[in-house]
């Protein structure tokens, strides 16, 4: 594909990412030259065991961390060299986050939490889209509740709506089901899948859960700071097999 579809700008385009923590003898190589391209409108899962570097990769792709060397472009913009202000503006426009621990603000209602990215950016919500979104995540009757009055699943729904509300170029999800029971996890994964299908929301999800990866259009397998395999849409069984053969457990 390289060189043939020059007009298509990848949503995320990372090359030769190296991330070293510490120095000298104690240096830890979290990433050892990783290249990733994320196509628009796809749900991409990054799989790997603890310490494989999958979280580091996501942090760097999302501009939360800087690589020791290598380049990351989001919507064609090189972000590894951006200053704090430019990076902040980029986040407003291009990036949405879903966290393992939801990271909702306890003093705000569900509605205010969802609208927070727009409030911060100083833009008005599109009421139609907002209603549609709230309907889709199933929170219409919970909007005036505060996080402490919501279940874990409901809190993560609020977080998903918050990530989608500004229609970012890409949503990064960090173990979105890591803190939920399996039934709720299934609902949340379905919701994320449908956001990709219905809104065409490009999403990158870091997970060690095969069930979650089975929802993805594409699965990247990470081990010891390198991408060791890539597959298209696979079922849970296939994914577990791959993990087994790669000895990633």
């Amino acid at each position: 594909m390289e060189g043939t579809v020059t007009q298509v700008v990848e949503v995320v385009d990372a090359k030769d990412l190296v991330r070293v923590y510490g120095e000298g003898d104690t240096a830890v190589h979290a990433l050892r030259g990783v290249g990733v391209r994320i196509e628009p409108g796809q749900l991409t899962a990054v799989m790997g065991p603890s310490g494989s570097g999958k979280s580091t990769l996501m942090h760097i792709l999302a501009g939360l961390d800087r690589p020791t060397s290598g380049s990351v472009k989001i919507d064609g913009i090189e972000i590894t060299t951006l200053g704090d202000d430019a990076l902040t503006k980029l986040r407003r426009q291009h990036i949405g986050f879903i966290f393992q621990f939801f990271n909702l603000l306890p003093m705000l209602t569900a509605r205010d939490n969802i609208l927070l990215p727009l409030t911060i950016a100083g833009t008005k919500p599109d009421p139609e889209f907002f209603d549609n979104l709230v309907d889709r995540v199933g929170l219409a009757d919970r909007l005036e509740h505060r996080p402490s009055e919501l279940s874990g699943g409901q809190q993560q729904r609020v977080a998903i709506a918050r990530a989608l509300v500004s229609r970012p170029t890409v949503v990064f999800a960090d173990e979105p089901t890591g803190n939920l029971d399996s039934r709720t996890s299934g609902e949340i994964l379905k919701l994320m899948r449908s956001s990709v299908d219905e809104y065409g929301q490009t999403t990158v999800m870091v997970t060690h859960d095969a069930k979650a990866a089975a929802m993805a259009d594409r699965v990247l397998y990470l081990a010891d700071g390198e991408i060791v395999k890539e597959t298209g849409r696979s079922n849970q069984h296939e994914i577990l097999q791959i993990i087994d053969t790669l000895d990633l457990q």
Partner: protein
Amino acid sequence: MIKFALQGLLARKLRTALTAIGVVLGVALISGTYVLTDSITSAFDSIFTQNYKNTDAAITGKNAIDASEDGTVPAPPFDAGLLAKVRGLPQVGAAGGAVSGEAQLIGKDGKSIVFGGAPNLGFSVDPTLPQFNSLTLVSGAWPAGDQVVIDTKTAKEKGFTTGDTIGVQARGAAEKMKISGLVEFGAVSSIGGATLAGFDLGTAQRLFDKTGKLDQILIATKSGTSEQQMLDAVRQILPTATQVRTADEQAKEDAAGTSSFLSFLQTFLLVFGGIALFVGSFVIANSLSITIAQRTREFATLRTLGASRRQILSTVVLEALVTGFVAAVAGLFLGLAIATGLFKLFDAVGFTLPNNGLVFRTRTIVVALIVGVVVTVLASLRPAWRATRVPPIAAVREGATLAPGRLNRYRPVGAALLAAGGIALVLVGLFADGLSTKTLLTLLGAGVLLLFIGIALFSSRLVRPLATVADPIARWSVVVLTALIWPFVLVPLWLVRRLFGRRTEFPGVLPDGPAVAIGGQNSRRDPHRTASTAAALMIGLALVTLVATLGAGLIRPFEQAVDGIFSADYAITAQNNFSPLPPPVAAEVAKVPGVQKVTSVRGGQAKAFGKTITITAVDPQAPELLTFDWRSGSQASLGELGTDGAIVDASYADTHALVLGSRFPMQTATGKTLQLQVKGVFRPPAGGSPFGNVTISTATFDATTSQPLNIYTFVNMSGGVTAANTATLNDALSTFPNAKALTRDEFKKAQTDSIKSILNVLYVLLALSVLVSLFGIVNTLVLTVFERTRELGMLRAIGLTRGQVKKMIRQESVITALIGAVIGIALGLLLASLLAARLDEISFTIPVAQLVIFAVVSVVVGIFAAIWPARRAAKLDPLEALQYE
């Protein structure tokens, strides 16, 4: 974002309230001060205006020199003949003459009536000219000759009514007079607790030793004549040493003494409000730092959602702004309560302040709000800046903590520089010559401020060693204090609880080893936090220590000065220990059998080398009872001053190049110029000179002073100090109930007591700052308990009892308080030693007993501060605590 900030505040109501309490108290003291002084000013203004309500102009005597308003040099009376001349002017409608002075009323117990040190006012009243009379007759009649009217308050409290006989004493011996009626001043029953005594003109003139003289002529303009025409006409006939003022000017002049006192009182109280606010700002900065550290993930999440650093900054500052505003409003109203309370307090001790209702001026509101908001916002800047440094990635890290700032490693250096700069300012202020008082105080204030901030920032370095040392001290001081209250408080409390069927542990005294050990560890775990918490207490204790050390350093040289100068057996003073006494008192004493020698020192003011100075005068007996430290001249010259001899103190001699034999002119208050010759130069004692710059002979003084007064009278009796001699002297003084005889030791004690009572006032005002710092410790502990919820749950789960949790937190609290106390006391001693090195009047004396008390008080502060946070911590359900998050 505004909504976000406000909702954040609402969600943390308790923490916000605790944070703001320092500002509330500081602003309350400031607004209370303004309300109090404004109310008094307005009441006094109305009194003084009332005085001249029907008057257009007033003639008074005029001092030849610019005498200060300390009452030692009243304007001289003028010849009463002027009244007839004024009345004769065609422009004058009516004119009345009056005299006034101090008149003691004597109670049925034979003692003079004094309400809390307030003055005893006496004056003439002229019922034939009611328009000039500021007194209102409540019952009875106006006084005829040798009769008196007194104020209703004195009558009521001392059991006098119309028709009774009351003792009255002014310049001469006490005499009995019939009370013809009761009066009030305008509509107020009392001005500052002053007693009022009104006489007819002749009686007043005799009592005040002003026969044929007047102090004041009040004039009403004839209708059809302009005030200006009247003033012009009066000026034509004015003799020298008199002046005429319009009623407004005269009211202002009368009020000048009170207003200068009030403005002093105002500044004085405002300084302490400022100190409380300064301490409060430490509490705010510290609480905000902790809160912000705890909200790290929240700020990081905001950053990932696209919030810029500026937005984070403005969120935190906005929170501070709102907190400051609310705290200032609360403080403003608390200030009203404080003012009301102070009025009641003064009333309770007999010093009734005139009060026509509380005056709440716009200025009070504006200043209180601005000060409260500005202090809070300033205190929030550093924590707010730290909040902006939270990296977005902290949102995905569990238990993320705020990384130390980039500038952190320069912190000790910066702190040391700040402290050094502070000391430098203090040194410049103290030792540079020729600074104005204002510059000096500004330098000292700014220097001490910088020093406190520097030490507070630096002290995190001292926390670990100090906490290690303080740990066992805290442990055992708590044991001792617990043991002390154990039989009186703890056991009865336990019994009461048992009676109500509650199961509680029997109160123990010994420390709980493991719990206390964890508490000790906790105090060392975040040195920055412990240091900032301790800093608030440090400031309070540094100031208290400074005051105590200066007080001790002031009293000792003072006592030495008394010992060095006065070799007499007895001193005669006023009942209040400081008012000057009229000369007949000394004359009465001289007649007492057994009295060998009596000498009196007169006090007053005069003008020499272009400046008004204090002067004293001594009589020929002085050499035998007073001892001077002579540079030139001798004891003998003290008794041979004659009409032109003068003794000057060493520094005055140096300033004006005076040596033995030098001649210089001095103008007295009555306008006479004396050509003086230096007969001696003495070195005043370190404890302060009881003598003026220039001392002349009593004879010369009396010849040039309208109403001389003695500031000291000393007596030697055969047999020295004996009970019989004391009784004899006091018997002789029964005709002067305002005077008393004190032995030399009593005299010393009476003089030092006044210093001690000033110290007590300072302690009370500084206690407010200590209170603020107590809340600071409470706040830190509460926040720490919030933060360590999981840890506390774990400790409870592995078997720590509720009681142990409480002891653990108390130990941390007491160690923090002790650290603040140690650094504070050390700083206070340092500042005191600097001041003592500069001021001759102060020797550096460590007040060991007081310092021990302060340390104990700090431990108590630590114990109290821990009560509530410890209860919260003990109430945590271990299971819930572990499920947290």
